[in-house]
């Protein structure tokens, strides 16, 4: 597979102080849906805008579809569609006028009607943009990206702030584009979105890739695929953490600030009885116990000690 997007040792320093991106390497294949997952301020927007040719990098190389921004900017613009993290389109144009306007910039755009139909905006085609709901606005933003018939689609947090139904609608649109052979790069801080939508992803923190791979690979690398969460009465210290770690089947231990302990385990049916025994032996009481499948969130917590969304 030829590479659709490639960047090497990408760095961006704002105003000589803020190191937003520190040596990023990405290789995204044609036809892939690739996700950049990371908390707010991780450097996702900076990265994607450099790749989109909207922001000059401080150093590093970018190649899109085998071309560079320095020599083939116009050609590249014809073959990509973007949706910025935040664009407020003109409020007093209708949906159709907006799509027509964006279509007019491309040499060979798609028919506005087809795009309206695909994005389920036909009913709203004569409504002013200012009167649309959040989900409809976001679909319109993606419509303006798709109308140029791009080969590569860049979406910066396409579903942030949307309700679950609107979010699923957008996922379907992205999958449809991918099915036609398109390449997608999207950023998100929703682990569920990354898990469900992306073929591969890079987890980004403080401007660096801290892990990359398919969602399944990343979760598998945690060791355990299950998480046992519990809280017990009595003092918790490093000694007790050590004790949890030596329970059967435990791969790693993570203590939350609120006293909750997370055990990443391979076989919960072995770990849980041993855990209960230990708590009885310690003369403390179990306040909470639950088990669940491990997620990308756990991967992030494991790697950084923080949660993806701290709100």
């Amino acid at each position, binding site marked *: 597979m030829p590479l659709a997007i490639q960047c090497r040792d990408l760095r961006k320093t704002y105003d000589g102080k803020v190191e937003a991106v520190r040596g990023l390497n990405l290789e995204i294949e044609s036809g892939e849906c690739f996700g950049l997952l990371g908390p707010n301020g991780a450097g996702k927007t900076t990265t994607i805008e450099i790749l*989109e*040719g*909207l*922001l000059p990098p401080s150093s590093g190389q970018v190649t899109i579809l085998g071309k560079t921004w320095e020599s083939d900017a*116009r050609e590249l*613009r*014809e073959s990509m569609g*973007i949706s*910025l993290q*935040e*664009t*407020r*389109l*003109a409020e*007093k*144009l209708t949906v159709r*006028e907006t799509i*027509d*306007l*964006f*279509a*007019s*910039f*491309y*040499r*060979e*755009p*798609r*028919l506005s009607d*087809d795009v309206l139909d695909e994005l389920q905006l036909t009913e709203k085609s004569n409504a*002013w943009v200012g009167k649309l709901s959040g989900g409809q606005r976001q679909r319109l933003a993606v419509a*303006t990206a798709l109308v*140029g*018939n791009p080969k590569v689609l860049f979406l910066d947090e396409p579903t942030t702030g949307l309700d679950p139904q609107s979010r699923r609608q957008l996922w379907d649109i992205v999958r449809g584009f991918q*099915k*036609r*052979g398109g390449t997608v790069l999207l950023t998100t801080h929703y682990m569920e979105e990354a898990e469900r939508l992306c073929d591969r992803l890079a987890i980004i923190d403080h401007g660096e890739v801290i892990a990359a791979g398919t969602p399944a690979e990343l979760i598998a690398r945690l060791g355990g695929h299950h998480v046992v969460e519990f809280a017990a009465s009595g003092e918790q210290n490093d000694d007790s953490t050590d004790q949890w770690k030596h329970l059967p089947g435990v791969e790693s231990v993570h203590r939350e600030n609120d006293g909750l302990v997370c055990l990443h385990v391979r076989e919960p049916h072995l770990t849980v009885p041993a855990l209960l025994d230990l708590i009885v032996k310690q003369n403390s009481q179990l306040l909470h116990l639950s088990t669940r499948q491990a997620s990308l969130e756990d991967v992030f917590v494991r790697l950084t000690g923080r949660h993806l969304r701290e709100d």
Partner: protein
Amino acid sequence: MAVSEPPPKLKDSPGPKQLALLHNGRWSGFTHLLAARMTELWREPEVMFWVFVFPLLLALGLGIAFRDKPADVTPVAIVAGSDAESTLAMIERSPEHALIHAQIAERNAALKGFRLGKYDLVIEPDSASEFHYVYDPARPESVLSRREVDDALQSAAGRKNPLTTATTVSSEPGSRYIDFLIPGLIGMNVMNAAMWGIGFALVDMRQRKLLKRFVGTPMRRSDFLTALASSRILLMFVEVVLLLGFGVFFFHMRVMGSWLAILLVGTFGALAFSGIGLLSASRAQKIETASGLMNLIMMPMWIFSGVFFSYERFPAVLHPFIKALPLTALNDALRATVLEGASLASQSGRLLVMAVWGVLSFLLALRVFRWT
């Protein structure tokens, strides 16, 4: 959007799923940008008010204020006292009596009225044949009033004029204040509308990240800026026709030059101020920054460029600088074409001034422009 596009030609896409594609020509981006701009303006009621209604109201107000003032009757006060009645009688029997409206008032009331502009002059009779005038040399009507009252009193007292003179009253269309005013208002309106229109639109689009979104497409940046300037020219046509038409219907103005020449002069003005508007909003992230800068740029022209009164009143050393201002060039060229029917060729110097301002600021704006 009312833009005629070449009929869509369907093309096969190379992709795995066949998508129907259009084929766009070179100017499709420009025409759509222009149409979108006009559509947005049309749907913006405030814009319609400031661009079209406000200048008409201003012209109407000023026109009425200056038309209804009985031509040259000067209000004067005579300080009450033993000689007040006889002074009043002298004025009323003088040949100039029709031009003077004299009233007897207490000294304090007279002086207060003078300060407030109710009287142009205060006459204080010292005796039946000695008078003392209170007037303000900085107020033209006060100066005039003193001359008229003095003439009236002197001739009432028996002065014989050595020369015989006759006067013709000139209040024919073409030489009245409203005739001077309307072209100035058109010029000022073209400037204000172009500067505000472009400045606010740009800063707004920059804040909305719409400019950034646009440069993420193959849109030509020069198309975007020219479409913005072109929208101002289209609006200028409407403004000129409205204001001038208003002058013709309400004040019976006579338009001596051809409308085509007048619109062409307006086009140069709209281009000059579009360029300056683009430049002044080329980097601003906030509306306050842009409007501060634009006010700073427009302020000298509001004062010096002869909108409400002729710049001939400023010292002659300033005239070369005043004439280099784009609004002066626009106002002068408009007055010449509208009032005197001057040819475009005779206005080439002024058109050049406007063109230079427009082109230079447009080129500079393209270089320093911030799209993000």
